[in-house]
Structure formats: structure tokens, C-alpha cells
């Protein structure tokens, strides 16, 4: 905070520097005003569309509300009901399974391809592949899911048609619990690894070449350089990428909703799908909000844990 008294001399003692200091103060005030003007749209937007809905959602978690009638106070009932809901338990189990598998796959694929592209490919191919790998991310997840459900339709899908032509028979891609989970994971990773890939590519570019040169002189090559130089120096990027991937995977919705609607059985039902179903299927906006609050707490805890662990595993210099 600016201390005006420290920079503005007392009026009783005229000073030649006074007009200059006043001008500086005025300038600073002007700058503050300009900063406020420029920041206002973002602050107002965030406030209206992020902060207010978050607060409203937390408040709603303590009410029963079906949109049509007035909300009724429910205390902690909505939270109590969550712990006895087998659907939610299974959805949390599925979500954790999705998070673990998609994050590991996403990071592994993105890192592998980033190393390959940065280290081996010629420059023109690098830029082409950057675009190719990033492309799925700009597609609508719902559109991708619809196309995938057509491609892998057990009866008439293109993939099974070719498999049948080869005499391999049809595969129940989405009509068997385990294969449906695997397919959802693969589709999700295919669509999302591009961003992680770009992060890793940036991280790799920032590792000084002389570290590799020095290690080469010491006789280190290939895997040893990757294990002892690339991975440790990429750890800040890995931290950011994994935090973002986990937060995103915890909110997985589009793919299972469009392709399997959570089935077969409850095998692909995720927490966000339960939130949607409770809110718009069952008109239980209070319960849906309570699950939302619970999911937010889980995300915050996981992220905090990651940053805590990062003290041991992340090298910033």
C-alpha cells in the first residue's frame, strides 16, 4: 500500500521537489485507476460466473430444492445421504480408477512423444506433429464421443466390420463392463494428451543443452541421461501437468455420458454423472450440490497432497 505521508511534504514547508512528487502520486493514482478499469471485466466476470455460483452451490448443499418449489432447509441431510448411496460409492470408485489410469497413460504417452518429437524428428515434422497431437483437444468431446460410438458399435461399427472381414469376430467394445471402461479411458487419453504433450515439449526445450553435453563427456547416454537429467529437470513441468490432468480427470463426464450413459451396469458411471443425474434427472439440486462440494474437497486435498509431495520430488534448479 502506498504511504502518501511519506512522500508528500508538509504544506507549511514549501519545497522545490513538491510539485514533482505530487505528479508522481497523481500518476500512481491514475495507474491504479487504469489497473482497476482493466481488471474490472475479469473480476466482475469471475465474481458473477465463478465465485457466486460456488457460494450458491455450497449454500444449496444444505437445502432441498427441486427448481419448481421453494428450497427447504435440510441441514446436513444431503451429506448424510451421500454416505449410504451405493451408486455414489461405485461412481467414486470408477472415477478414482479413471483418474489413476488416464493420468498415468496421459503423462506417459505425452512425455514419450515429446521426447521422441524433440529429440529425433526434423524441425518441419516437429511442428506438424505438434499440431496433429494438439488437434483432438479443440474438438468437442461430445462430437468425438458420438463418432467413437459409431466407429466401435458392436453390430454395425466400422472397426468390427473390418474385424469380421478378417475373421476375428466382433468385440463388445461398449457392451462389456471392462472393455467399456478401457475404451472410455483410451478415448479420453487420445483427446487430452495433446496439451500435456505441449507442456512437456516446452519443458524439454528449457533444459540447457550443456547439461547433456557434460553428461556425455562423463559417458552417460540414452536411458541414463533420460533417467538422471531429463526426468528430474522436467519435474516442475510434470507437477503442473499432473495437477491439471488429475483435476480434469476427476471431472470426466462427456465421454461416458454420451457413449455408455454410465453402463453397462454402473461400470462407467462417474461422480460428475451422478451430480448431473441427481440435479436434472431426479431434481435433487441439494444432493447434487452436496456431491459437488464433496468432489471439490477431494480435488483440493489431492492437489494439496501433490504440492506437498512435490517438495521431495520436484527440482526447481
Amino acid at each position: 500500500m502506498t504511504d502518501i505521508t511519506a512522500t508528500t511534504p508538509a504544506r507549511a514547508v514549501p519545497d522545490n521537489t513538491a510539485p514533482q512528487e505530487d505528479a508522481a502520486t497523481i500518476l500512481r493514482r491514475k495507474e491504479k485507476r487504469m489497473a482497476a478499469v482493466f481488471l474490472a471485466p475479469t473480476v466482475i466476470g469471475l465474481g458473477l460466473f465463478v465465485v457466486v455460483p460456488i457460494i450458491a452451490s455450497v449454500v444449496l448443499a444444505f437445502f432441498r430444492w427441486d427448481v419448481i418449489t421453494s428450497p427447504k432447509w435440510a441441514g446436513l441431510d444431503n451429506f448424510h445421504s451421500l454416505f449410504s448411496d451405493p451408486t455414489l460409492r461405485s461412481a467414486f470408485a470408477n472415477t478414482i480408477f479413471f483418474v489413476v489410469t488416464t493420468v498415468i497413460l496421459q503423462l506417459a504417452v505425452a512425455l514419450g512423444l515429446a521426447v521422441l518429437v524433440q529429440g529425433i524428428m526434423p524441425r518441419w515434422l516437429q511442428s506438424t506433429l505438434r499440431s496433429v497431437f494438439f488437434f483432438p483437444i479443440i474438438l468437442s468431446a461430445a462430437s468425438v464421443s458420438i463418432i467413437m460410438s459409431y466407429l466401435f458399435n458392436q453390430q454395425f461399427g466400422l472397426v468390427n466390420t473390418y474385424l469380421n472381414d478378417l475373421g476375428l469376430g466382433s468385440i463388445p467394445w461398449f457392451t462389456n463392463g471392462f472393455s467399456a471402461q478401457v475404451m472410455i479411458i483410451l478415448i479420453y487419453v487420445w483427446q487430452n494428451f495433446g496439451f500435456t504433450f505441449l507442456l512437456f515439449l516446452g519443458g524439454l526445450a528449457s533444459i540447457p543443452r550443456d547439461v547433456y553435453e557434460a553428461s556425455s563427456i562423463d559417458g552417460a547416454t540414452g536411458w541414463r541421461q533420460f533417467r538422471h537429467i531429463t526426468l528430474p529437470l522436467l519435474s516442475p513441468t510434470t507437477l503442473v501437468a499432473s495437477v491439471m490432468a488429475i483435476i480434469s480427470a476427476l471431472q470426466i463426464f462427456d465421454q461416458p455420458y454420451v457413449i455408455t450413459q454410465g453402463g453397462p451396469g454402473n461400470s462407467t458411471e462417474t461422480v460428475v454423472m451422478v451430480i448431473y443425474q441427481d440435479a436434472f434427472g431426479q431434481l435433487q439440486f441439494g444432493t447434487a450440490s452436496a456431491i459437488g462440494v464433496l468432489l471439490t474437497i477431494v480435488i483440493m486435498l489431492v492437489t494439496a497432497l501433490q504440492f506437498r509431495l512435490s517438495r521431495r520430488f520436484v527440482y526447481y534448479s
Partner: protein
Amino acid sequence: MTDITRRVALGAAGVGTLAALTAGFPRLSGLDVPGRHGNALRIALFGTQQQAAQQDALIKAFQAENPDIKVVMIPIQASDWGGFFAKVLTMVAAGTPPDVVNVATEGAQLFAAKLAEPLDDYIRRPAERAAMQDYFSDVHPSLIESFMYKGSLYQLPANFNAANIFLSNTALHKAGYDYPPDDWTKDDFVTMLRAIKKTNPGAVPFYWANRMWGGVTPWLYINNTSILRETKSPAGAAADWLWNGFYKGVPAAQGRSGGPLWLEAQATIPSVEETFELLREMVKDGLSSSPASGGGGALVPQFASGRVATTTAGGYWVDGLAQAGVKNDQYDVQFMPKWKSQSHQFGASGWSMMRSSSRKEQAWAWLKFISSRKGMYLSAPKPTTTPCRRSLCAGSVEIDGVTHPFYSAEGPKHWKVFYETLDRFPGTGPFTAPPSEPAIELALDKNTINAVGGSASQMRSALRSLQGDLTRALETRA
């Protein structure tokens, strides 16, 4: 060239933003939402902007009879009826509910319980007697009963679709079969599928989509059972003014109630298990497809190309097949085969007047018009559905002295099956759709794949899971 200073650039950007905000103000503030601040009757329709535009003739005809009522059609796009109702509910939450909503069986009881105005008092007005008698005389009572909830009528049904069996004539002839008789049995059906599989190995003998309408439900109904136990509300006052009033002397109306109720899950009872077992065996033997999720959109080209020999569909499919180039004589339609009964399931749709509407008289005028012969015809001038008025469900339709082709231009040889399904089988009724229908349908879809896609023990486990999901869905709404 003049240098552009940062100050000028920022100023220009500011002015530009201000101009964009001013130009976009109606959109940003919602002022341009159709009919929001006018005095028009706001009608929410499940469909696209293009489908809403196709209702122009209907709106013009309505306004010719009601020049003082301005109508705004609000098309709401969604992947299914559940999505449509969710969007209507967001309009309600936002304080801008429509006056009239296009509601199908899926949402009939949800709307009746929470949002819709009962129509009993409007229908019983002496001034409406003639128009309403004309309507009820032309509409099968089971359609009316399906839109009754706890003794009151909430909609005048406009169209319906019963799940019948569509047959590819090519596949049938190849298997040495002709058009099956009306009273064929489920064993006849399975035998026919085996013959089709033998003579046409590349084809799918029977295809079905995994959904409430036309999925497992028709098979449950012909086996005289259902995943939810159905009871009936007492008819109450409707027994006098409706069943013994407008429907006096109509045998099909005798014993009708105040609407169906589904309060209890029964997915594990032997008859339900028996039905799922039939489908499971058909899938296992390669007589039926493994059920895919979703509607029948992807099915049209498969049926048109002869890759699918039989499937469940309704009158709505006739125009779709014609558009895909399928000739009338390439396919036919027959009732569901007989098992313990031959009761069919149907889904219907109509128009609900919103309880919150401040334009109820105008809304009633719309409901009355759209249930007239002219209004009902104009709302669906092609066989994209089955009109609820029997007189419209014919080879051709005469409106204002002009004869229009209907099933005579597009339609299979036995198109009369569509409406006769109601006349021939009195037990025919709506699929199970309590107020929590979206959750019921989701539970059925999710568990059906497991129930028919594996062993008998997996099927029983899936039915137990279905029972649990259904019970929770019914409890939470109660």
C-alpha cells in the same frame, strides 16, 4: 503513415468493446429471448429451429381462428425427452417458463405432479362440449388414460407410437416366409429369426435399441409384466364426466381409471426374469443384436439396405424410411407376437398448459385448436408419427374439403396396424413413466446390457442391480 500510439490503440479498443456491448445488449440481457417481454403465447417445442419453422402453417391456421393471440414457438434441442425436460426446468428456474409445453409420456407425470394445470375444468365447460365430444369420439380411451394423473387429465394427446414389428420383405422372402398372421406367437417369431439367420448369415435377424420405448419393454408387456408394478388411480369425478360422459357406451372405455401409477419396483419377479431370459438367449444364439444405446437413427440405413431383417418401431418410422429411399413394398409392419398376452406399449405426446402461465385462456385456445382435426393434421402432415385421432390415421385425410395423402403415399401395406394396436389389444398402455422417469430409464438402459449380454447368473445379478436402482429412483422422487 501515421503512427498509432498505445493510447490511441487502447482508446479504439475501448470504443470497439463498448460498441460491441451496445450491439449485443439484447442478447446479453436476454431481451431477445422469443416472447419474453411481449404478450405472446410462448410454446416450448422439442425440436430444432427448423422443426419449429415447419409449424408455420399450424400457427397461421391457429391465428386465423384466433387473431388476437400472438404465438411464439420456442424450439428446444435435446438428445432425448429427459434432456428436453431438463432445459424446460432451467427456464422455470430462470423465471421465464413457457405457457405451453410439448410433453411426451416420459414427462407426463413429472409435469402433472409439478408443473402442469389440470384440464378437467376447461374440458367440462358447456361451451366446449361439442368440440370435446368430437375429439374424444375420435381418440382411443387408452391414450387419454395415459395422460391422466391421480384422477385429472393433464393433456389432450396429439400423437402416439406403439412398438410394432417392422419386417424386411426381402429378408422374409429369402427365408421362405410371407407376412406373418396377426396372432403369431413369440415362438413363431423366434423360429422365423432362426430361418432368417440360416438363409441370410450376413443379416441381423432382429435389431433392438436399448431404451425404454421399444427396448425390453414391449417384450415385458406381451409377457404381461413390467419392471414396475402398475396400479391405477381411482377415476374419481372423471368416471362421470369422462368415462361415463364423453365415452358413454364405448366398450374400450369401460373400467378405465384416473391414470396409471408406478410406485414399486419388481425387476426380480419370475416373469421379468423370463422375459430377459428370452432376449438373452436370442442375443446368445445370434438371433438378435446386442442392444446398442440410443435411438433408431442409425438403424434406418441398415434396415433400408436389408442388413436388419426385423426390428421394433412405430408409425414415426414410415416417413424416415421413405426419406431413405425405402419403397412401400420393401417392408411391412405387424403386431408384436403373442406371449401371455399381446398387449403393446406405446409412448404418446401432447401439450401441457403450465400452472404458472398468466395466459391460460390463450393456452387453452391453443390446446383446443391443436386437438382439432385440422390442427392435429397440420402439426404432423406426414407420417412422422401416428396421430391420436383415428380419422387422421387413414390412407388419406380430408381437411377443409381438400384430400391429402397420408399412409397412401408413404406407408407399408398393413399400415392399419398402427392404430389397430389400440383397438385390438385392450391391455395396450404407456410404458412405465412415473415422475422419476429419467432415472428409471437410465437404470433400465444401464442394467439391460449386462442382463442380456452374458450368462444366466450375470442376468440375475443385473436384475438385482436394476431392482436396487429402480427402488432408489422411486424413493427419491416420492
